Every structure is written in structure tokens, then in C-alpha cells.
């Protein structure tokens, strides 16, 4: 067992874990943060996307012990209790989810996209950037609309680090 400590959604956490424990297992099983999902366990589907030190990563392909000292944000930590994040609002408003399984990863990837690319995102950019996030229900059409609208709303509210 190896000791690991990190900050998850603003709270310090520490545990002794197997060195092979994945970050997603640590989040889901040790911390019971089950909003981060495992869809493919091979880094393809993006259901497990969280933010590590402000960048989107696939938590099914990251060892928990390699996140020593890191700042992790999951879907549960994206917004305050009182108010949804603009990207969450946009996904609901534009019917960008059906079964909801891919949704947390989609939203985390979309927020990261705005951090990197700014709040004015065209369709081509959004589709290219979401290559690593799969959805089987929606056909992506409404997800693209939601990400564009969510990005604009983030820009308007000047939340996060939007350019």
C-alpha cells in the first residue's frame, strides 16, 4: 500500500492505496464520488473525465498515486449547491443528454474546452474537441449546441478562467 494525498473538490483527502489503484476507482470507491463514470476502461469514451490541476484528464488511465498533491475537480465539485454551472444549465436547456451516463464527462470536457479555447466555439471546434467523449443516445447534435451555448454563458458570466 502507498500513501496518497490530494485535494478533491476543494477538500483535502488522504488514503493508503494499492499502487495499481486508478484515480477513477479512488474517486468512485474510496470517496464515493460516483458521478465520474467508467464506460470503457481504455481511455476512449470520456465518461471518466475530471479536471486535474485545471486540465481535463481521463481518470481511468491515471493512477491514484500519481496524483499526489494534485487538485482534482469532479462533476460533483463543478458548481455550488445553490447554482448550477453554466455548462450544466446549457446541457439541460438544449436536451444534450438522454441516459445521462456520458454527461458528467461531457460537461467536464466541455468546461475544459472553454478554458483552453475561449467562449466563442464554432461547431467544427466543438466536434473535434469532443472526439474523446462518446455518446450513444443523442447523436451529438444537441451536445454541440449545448457546448456552444454553455461556452457563451461562461464567457458572459466571466466564470472560471474563460478567455
Amino acid at each position: 500500500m502507498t500513501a496518497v494525498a490530494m485535494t478533491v473538490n476543494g477538500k483535502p483527502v488522504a488514503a493508503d492505496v494499492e499502487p495499481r489503484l486508478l484515480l477513477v476507482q479512488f474517486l468512485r470507491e474510496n470517496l464515493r464520488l460516483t458521478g465520474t463514470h467508467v464506460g470503457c476502461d481504455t481511455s476512449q469514451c470520456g465518461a471518466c473525465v475530471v479536471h486535474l490541476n485545471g486540465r481535463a484528464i481521463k481518470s481511468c488511465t491515471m493512477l491514484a498515486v500519481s496524483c499526489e498533491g494534485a487538485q482534482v475537480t469532479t462533476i460533483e465539485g463543478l458548481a455550488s449547491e445553490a447554482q448550477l454551472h453554466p455548462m450544466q444549465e446549457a446541457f439541460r436547456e438544449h436536451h444534450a443528454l438522454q441516459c445521462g451516463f456520458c454527461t458528467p464527462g461531457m460537461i467536464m470536457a466541455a468546461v475544459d474546452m472553454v478554458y483552453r479555447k475561449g467562449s466563442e466555439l464554432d461547431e467544427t471546434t466543438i466536434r473535434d474537441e469532443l472526439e474523446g467523449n462518446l455518446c450513444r443516445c443523442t447523436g451529438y447534435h444537441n451536445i454541440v449546441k449545448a457546448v456552444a451555448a454553455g461556452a457563451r454563458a461562461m464567457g458572459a458570466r466571466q466564470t472560471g478562467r474563460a478567455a
Partner: protein
Amino acid sequence: MNTGIGQPVRRREDFRFITGSGQYTDDINRPGQGYAVFVRSPHAHATIRKIDVAAATKAPGVLGIFTGKDLAADKIGTLACGWMVLSKDGSPMRAGVHPVLALEKVRYVGDHLAVVIAETMNQAHDAAELVSVDYDVHAAVVDLGSAQQSGKPQIHAEAPNNTVYQWHLGDKAAVDAAFAKAKHVTRIDLVNNRLIPNAMEPRAAIAEYDRGSGGYTVYTTSQNPHLTRLVLSAFMGIAPENKLRVIAPDVGGGFGSKIFIYAEEVVCAWACRKVGRPVKWVAERTESFLADAHGRDHATTAEAAMDGNGKILAVRVKTKANLGAYLSTFASAVPTYLYAPLLSGQYDIPAIYCEVDGVYTNTAPVDAYRGAGRPEAAFVIERLVEVAAREMGIDPAEFRMRNFIRSFPHQTPVIMNYDVGDYPVCMKKALEMADYAGLAARKAKSAKAGRLRGVGFSAYIEACGIAPSRAAGSLGAGVGGWESAEVRVNMAGTVEVLTGSHSHGQGHETTFAQLVSHRLGIPMEQISIVHGDTDKVQMGMGTYGSRSAAVGMSAISVALDRVVTKATKVASRCMEVPEGTVDFQDGVFAARGTNKSMAFGEVALQAYVAHKFDSAEIEPGLKEGAFYDPTNFTFPSGVHIAEVEIDPETGVTTIDRWTAIDDFGTIINPMIVEGQVHGGIAQGIG
């Protein structure tokens, strides 16, 4: 905002999904749970000489290792197919035995050999790697075209020439006669490739046994928890239904693949008592590819006979359907009764004859996938009319128009009776929206740039909502096609609606509540939709075959009628007016010709207070249920036009435009329906 029928109400279920608060099966954990990992066959076809678990049993954390022999010793049943299909000669289909864990042979890569249950998932994986299996490997049958030839390896002793059935439908003599007098005959060969449904959420199950009550609880990724309970109880012998609770919580997509009862949930349900611990299994994506039921996989020869004007006189279809290595829960029905009755498409075809051979191969089982049989039929008839039109030099849209059914009800030669439709109007609208008239110019422009351009049509029809139970039974179905609902009105006027339908992305919590809100005139916030738990909902058939709106909501509608009828009686007594003078509208019971009225909530309260009426005449309370059995399928239809451009140098294909005109009748929530169409198109494109 108006939340009634026809409004694009935003989904009530979304809050939990966008905040990570959904509860899927893998999000559920039970105290002391062990983790199951399955040992699977790496061979497509082999006899099992020996399974050696000695080393694995000694591995750290192992709670139990079981093989098919252990299940057999406990008299656990085998996995059955629930639809009997008879061959042309009247003989029953030849189904091979499908053990939950393989006994003598493995028949496809991924077939289940043993289960390892350990304290942690990693320990279960480690131990599973120590299970050693000695195989006598056989040649495998993987080619559908040649699987039935004599001399090929036999997959099941019960099914000579790997043939499950040789089924047919229609009037062969009438079809032969029509072909004999045809001016033009078109013949095509088609492959409808196998595909893997791949819902985003992998299948999962957790089962626990409560020694105190003798009851079992199984959480599983199911589209139909009551069917799972029925099979686990009546066919597997895990426990009687009253001691077995099946919960299908949030389910991350199904597309058919989560209808069926698989080995894994049976093993978890059985093993939890053996090891004295809750047992949890979650599929890895690799397992989803290997062992979830696949879809489609047809090889078809189709022919159409036309007169000189392009009027179709008859259609003849011969299909080989790959059913995989075992018959999955509804496998036999998909390429027969869910397929051939749709071969008339939107066309007035006097005679149709279809033959289907169900074939075993050493591949993963094939069962219902998105549309299940009906899209396969649409593919056949649409390719056939397209090629026929081109061969006869008739514009493909015009060819379709000439053959559309124009009067309703329409009895096809293959069982179906279409109640209503207007196919030409959809086609005209689609042609206009797709700018079909401008296609030639766009084609020329593409050609100039060295690219190819073309359009494809699909003028489809779908039979939605599995048909009357009695009719389905006469065709071999093992279960009925009804749905149940219960409407429970609480004292203060809030309403719980229990439905046997199951939502795994369809948004029932919203659409069903819209119906109830519309009918009772109360806000959606006062309405809860309860589904997916056999201890809450008494009985249900689940969600598949496009049946939840047509059948599930109809059951709710009937139950609502009964609630209103009873509430009207209660209101009349409370207002002291004759029953026949009370009208119910927009949530208010009003006595005609008076200024007396009562809100729905007041009447609900009075129904429970029960002071204002004679309980011998009206029972206290306000709760009504219904089992709704449809009298027919519903027949949504439409026209889709895909216009694509291909770069012949690179093969890159771009969908330039996709036009969809769909006639779905009354739409409850257009936003959700459009979302379903988007998703269907994306899965169709692949």
C-alpha cells in the same frame, strides 16, 4: 410554462445527471460485497476437458469459485429463448441447451466458464487469471453463408446443420404467379452487418440475500426488471417472485441489449447466498463487446416483380439470420415476426413471400437491437425499390410515390393491418426540404470538383408497441404485450404514477408526468413517476419495441380515466349535486348550472376523509390501476433522405444534408422526440 401534451418541457431527470447524482447500478454498493469476475472462453468452439481452480482458490481474498457443475448441482435452470418459432413443416425450433456457465462445450469467444468471487475487484481478477482450462479445440463456424452446409462442425446436437428453424410467411403460390407475369424483375443480395449495441453504461449486477427474510434483491442494468424477476424465479429457480426484488435504477442506455437475461445476473443472484455476501459484477467494455447480445447480421436475397409502369406486383425475400451460438431471450422472434411483417414497407404490394433460416454460428448471440427486425425489413424493401426504380429508369422518389398505399386501413399480405398514414405527403415534404429538384446541379458541381454525390431514401414504416397479447401468443410469444399502470393520489392531491415501463434515457419521468398533468390539471411538481422496482410496481413488461408511449402511457391513461370517474363521484357527493352534472376540466370539478366547484386536491382529500359519502356506496381512497392491452401496433412512418458526397481519391464520405420527415401522431414532448430521432440517425449512420 405550459407543461401539457405537445410542450417541449425540459427534463426533470436531468438535474441528477448533470450534477453527477444519478444512481446507476455500478454506483450502488452493499456492505460486505464481494466482486465477481468471469472466466471466459478464448476459443470459439471447444470441448472443455478440465477446469482447474485449485491455484485460484488459494489466491488472496477469494470467497468462492464456481463452474457450471455447481449451478447444475443446485438445479439452477438454463437460459431459455422466450418465443417459439415453428418451421415451415410445423416442427418446433431446434434450440440447443444454453447453460448459464458452460458445461461440456464453449461455443463462442467470451462464453462463460466460471466465476471468481473475491474481496476486491483486483483480487478477483488476479484469481481468475489462475483458473486453468484444458480445451479440446474444434473448428469453428463463423460464416453465415456456409454454416448450414453438411460437413460443417455441429454447434448443438439438437440443431442439425446448425439450423434453428426454416420459417416462412406469406403466399408462395401467389408470389410465384405474380413473378411469372412480371414485365420486370429486380434481384438484389444484401448483407445487413452484425453490430454491437454498446450502450455507454456497461452491464452490471449486484445481488444480495437476506437470511432473515429469505428474500433476494438484485440490482441490474435492465430495460425490464419484471421480466428479469420472472426468468430468475420461474426458469432459473433462484427464488419465488415474492422473495425476489429486482431493481433497475438509472440505466445508461440499452438499445435492446439490456432486455435480455444474461448469465452474469443469474450467477450473481445465485452466488450471493453461496458465499454469504452481496456479489457485484460490472462488465468491462471488452466483455460488452464479447458477451452482450449483438444486433442484425442478416444475409438476404430479395426480388421484386413489377408491371411495365413500375407498379410492384410481388416481393420475394430469402434471409439467413445469424443467431449466434445460443438463442438469446427473444432471438428467435427478431428475424421472423418482427421482420417479415414489415416487408411491405409503405407500399401497396399484393403478394409477399418471405423465408427465414435461423442459423447457429460460433459467434456471440444476436438479439433485438434498436428497432429489432423492423429496420432490417426497411433496409431490404428500400434497397429493393431503389434498385428497381433505377433499373426501370424511373426516378426513385417517383417510383415510391407510384407504389405508396393510398387508402386506410390497409391489410398487407404479411399480417399487418396499417390503421392510418399519409405517405405521399411525407415524401413531398421531404423532397422539398432536401431540395431534391436541385440535386442535379449539386451533383454536377461536385463532379467538377472530382467528387461523387448521391442521395439515398428511406421511406420507412415501423410497427410500435408489441401487439395484442393473444395475437402475440398465437404467434409463439411466451409473454403478453400489455403494460400496467397505477395512479396513486395522495390525500393532499399529489400523485404517484407507477409504471411497468422503464426509462433508460427516454425521459419518462418528464413525458409521463406531462400526460398526467395535462389530464388532471395539476402541476408537474405534484407528480412523481415511479418505475424500475418490482417491489414498488406490481407488474410490467418494460421498455423495448417502441412500446412505452403507445402501451405504457395508454395504461396510465386508462388508470387516469378511472381516477377521474371515481373523483367525479366523490365531488358530486361533496357538492350535493347529481353525479351526471359534474364536469372535470383543468383540474376543477364543476357542477353544471351552479356556482359550485372543487379543485382536484380538495376532492382527493375528501376521498380519504370519507365523511361526505356513504362508504358502502363509494370506497374511501383514490387509487386506480390498469392493465392495457393494445388492439394493434401503431404505425409511425416517415421519409429520410441522406445526401452524401464522396471523395473517390480518399474515400472520405461527407453527409452533406440529412432530411427527416417523421409522422409520429400525437407528440407528447417534441424536444424529446427530436432527440430520439437524432440518436437513431446517428446509430443508423454508424
